């Protein structure tokens, strides 16, 4: 059942990314390009996504546990490390360069062609090498 809920969430996420236009790199880059032909669509996407989640977070306070789980995630960490700033800056640079982030890169896999597959491959490679490198060199701990 938990697997079904997880698959349902993944499917909804993918369909939402597709409908919102976030799998189209011109839409994402159009949002970041404030000195070009600026496209505000992404603000509607983010705003639309935050609404149901804000309600869901409030609901977690009323219930003892998730429907098919034992505990809700712990409260947010308000301690800020360098890692959030450094990592998000690197991520934002890549996001701007290509117009893809992890969710849309996966959602568009079936029609993204060789370029989309190459992006996904490079992204996964980065995800795999980073944790051992961080441990090895104690980077941004």
């Amino acid at each position, binding site marked *: 059942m938990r697997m079904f809920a997880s698959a349902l969430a993944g499917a909804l996420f993918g369909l939402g990314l597709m409908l919102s236009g976030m799998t189209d790199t011109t839409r994402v880059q159009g949002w970041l390009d404030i000195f070009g032909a600026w496209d505000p669509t992404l603000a509607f996407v983010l705003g639309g996504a935050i609404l149901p989640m804000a309600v869901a977070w409030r609901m977690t306070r009323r219930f003892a546990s998730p429907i098919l789980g034992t505990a809700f995630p712990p409260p947010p960490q308000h301690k800020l490390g360098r890692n959030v700033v450094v990592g998000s800056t690197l991520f934002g640079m890549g996001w701007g360069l290509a117009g893809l982030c992890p969710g849309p890169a996966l959602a568009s896999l079936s029609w993204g062609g060789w370029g989309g597959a190459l992006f996904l491959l490079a992204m996964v490679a980065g*995800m795999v090498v980073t944790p051992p490198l961080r441990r090895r060199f104690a980077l941004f701990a």
Partner: protein
Amino acid sequence: MELHYLYGLLGGLIIGTAAAVLLLINGKIMGASGILGSIADGSAEGSDRREKLAFLGGLIGAPALVALFFGAGSTNLTTNVVVIIAAGLLVGIGTRIANGCTSGHGVCGISRLSIRGIVATVFYLLAGGIVMVLFRHVLGVI
């Protein structure tokens, strides 16, 4: 209102609903980079691994089905191989160091007023904007 703003809002509501389903039913935070990363590097194990694989199956499968029957348009991704690889590496490394991306920090973090989520979102938006100015308007690469 232009039509793609409306699609953006509707798509956003569906994305938020997806995250709400994962939170209220399974008690998990929907972070695409964390889910993919922990599968790719083998750190997800047992039932957690199976649930994450199911999530990825839905995320790749549902849009693929829609694309099959209704067409998907285009991703309009650049054909510059160097840019694609550099961008992919930056996204992969950056999301791992920041411990989240647009879904985890942006959608799930901002909606619970997490300082980390808000700071992460500010920095990746700023970095994206600066890259856009530099690489599109100054260097003309993208």
